[in-house]
């Protein structure tokens, strides 16, 4: 009962009023267009014919709008419109929920990682690389956002839109992989500084703290170099390096495809066309050299 009452003064009645008004508006517009077409005019015969065909077309278009408005004001259509309007907040809520869960996941993993900061630093050891920290961006993107770029495209511009989506998708994937890669490169700095703190503490205890900043720098650079060398041998680093290079190549490939599409409308050769030409020249030259050597 309450719901009905709410509908009577709420969204449903507003929509019904709006569709009725639309119906009346398009109806009167179509009527006035028709009457203006019937008025006696001064223009010559050809002009008259042209203007009457325009007015006919306009009249038909307005009639179409009136029909559409009338159809929309029918109770069944209003109901369906209301239903889809009701679904909108649901869709938005779903989208927001997805974004929020990603954010919470990120926060959770960041908190987990932050908890490990106080743990003791194992110099020159990268066995326990915090994978959460490195995979979190890529995981979130892959699970939550990537699907939107894979929605099938339709119509005349389908292929172009697909390529644009692929470029956006590969760019995002490259960014997330690159972020992971850079974060891994920061690790040796963090660890070397922690090792330096320990070493300086020990030296201070012994009263052997270096007076020369150069000595401290030399110590640090050696420790840093050692950490880099150890990190670079780890399977995690090798994996992310390979992934970053492949992701960059994927993005470059997708971006080039979009640029080539744009170039098609300009009077210039695309890279693919030039590559084809270069291959033909290369093969021809090779043939000629073989023939020359046979002489």
């Amino acid at each position, binding site marked *: 009962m309450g719901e009905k009452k709410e509908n009577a003064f709420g969204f449903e009645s507003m929509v019904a009023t709006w569709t009725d008004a639309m119906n009346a508006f398009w109806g009167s517009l179509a009527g006035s267009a028709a009457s203006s077409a019937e008025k006696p005019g001064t223009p010559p015969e050809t002009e008259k014919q042209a203007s009457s065909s325009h007015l006919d077309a306009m009249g038909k278009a307005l009639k179409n709008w009136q029909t559409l408005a009338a159809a929309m004001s029918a109770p069944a259509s209003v109901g369906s419109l209301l239903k889809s309007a009701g679904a909108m907040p649901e869709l938005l809520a779903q989208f927001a929920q997805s974004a929020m869960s990603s954010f919470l996941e990120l926060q959770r993993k960041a908190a987990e990682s932050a908890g490990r900061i106080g743990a003791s630093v194992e110099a020159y050891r990268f066995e326990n690389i915090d994978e959460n920290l490195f995979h979190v961006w890529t995981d979130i993107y892959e699970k939550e956002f990537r699907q939107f770029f894979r929605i099938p495209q339709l119509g005349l511009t389908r292929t172009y839109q697909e390529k644009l989506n692929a470029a956006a998708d590969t760019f995002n994937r490259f960014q997330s992989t690159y972020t992971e890669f850079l974060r891994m490169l920061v690790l040796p700095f963090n660890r070397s500084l922690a090792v330096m703190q320990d070493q300086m503490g020990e030296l201070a205890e012994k009263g052997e703290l270096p007076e020369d900043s150069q000595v401290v720098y030399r110590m640090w650079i050696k420790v840093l170099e050692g950490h880099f060398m150890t990190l670079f041998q780890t399977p995690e680093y*090798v994996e992310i390096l390979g992934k970053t290079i492949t992701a960059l190549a994927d993005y470059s490939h997708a971006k080039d495809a979009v640029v080539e599409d744009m170039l098609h409308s300009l009077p210039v050769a695309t890279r693919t066309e030039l590559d084809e030409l270069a291959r033909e020249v290369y093969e021809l030259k090779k043939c000629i050299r073989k023939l020359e050597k046979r002489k």
Partner: protein
Amino acid sequence: MTQFKIPVDLIVSKLAEDAERVQNRAKKASEVLLSDLDAKLAQTPYDIVYREDRVTLKHYRPENGIRYKTPLLVVYALINRETMLDLQPGRSVVERFLEAGIDLYMIDWGYPTRKDRFQGLDDHINGYMDNVVDVIRKSTGVAQVNLMGICMGGTFSVIYSALHPEKIKNLVTTVTPTAFDTRKGLLHVWMKHLDVDRVVDTYGNLSADIMNFGFLLLNPARLMIDKYVGFMENMDNKTFVENFLRMETWIFDSPDLPGEVFRQFIKDCYQGNKLIRNQLEVGGQRVDLKKLTMPLLNIYGRFDHLVPPEACEQLTRHVGSADTEDICLDTGHIGIYVSSKYQREFAPKIAGWLKERDQIPKKQSPRKKTKAAPPSAGLKKTVQKTKPVKKNTPAGAKPESSVSGTVTRKTNG
């Protein structure tokens, strides 16, 4: 509670001294950086005697006459440029070879562009290199030339010598990777997991900037931090600045690498390790190292982080030659060529080794193919041993005792 003994007064006075020194250095440095700096590379005169596409052949003539019967062809890598061998007067491998009286030729691979992306190992080895060798043979009237390869150029030279042994008299390989199945060098570790098809299909050639970034990542602490800290500390020293700029110019003067060469080199060598196993095919021909029967001198660096000793030292055990020698120098990949100390040892050692094997060749038509020398019957009786170098100094060579490293020699028993 532990009481730390921190000499705060000393540290503070040291900081004050440092600040004053930095101020003075900055003043002098501005004078140096604003002055005329000589950072030119490759100043030794040469003639270009052959040109094919982007590839040129440089010919260096010794001022005091040629004292070798066989000319020497130097093949540099496709990565970076051959100008490293002629950094500056007084610090130049080229100069040392010319002083010894070697008739010297050097390949300049030029700068590959997009149109060169389809050129593979076959085009470089059986194409450009073979044509260059023929040009030298024709112009000098010798049947065979001496071949010296550097890094990837060494790998090319090994492949070439195995495919065309009749044209090569002596082979010298320096910091040359031939056995790729090792985890000692980071490149060997990283390249195993590279999706090379994706990279080549996308970019065509491998961009020099990407390659250089990769090389910097091999040791960021030294190459991206410490190196420039060293520069800041010495930028009031004109000679240091000039030398630094020269090296900097050379390091970043990098041509792109033709895509197909990169694809084949990574797939067949770094990922497949086919060369040392005699499984590599170039231009439809299998590369059999047993066909490499000419004398072989193999030099590499003990502290080479790009091409570690493990990648170089196996070659002499796999070739068909009965006359091989390994020299492991106590230096790195570039140090062999640019450090003054090793230049004094390395180039004269090669000159001496070549002199010892420089018999007068029969003058033959260069186009006429000479049959490859059959493998020595005494091959199975070869002795491979490490000897104190001083005792084995060949006639005409600088005493080997000056070579800081290990020498392993294989000779007929």
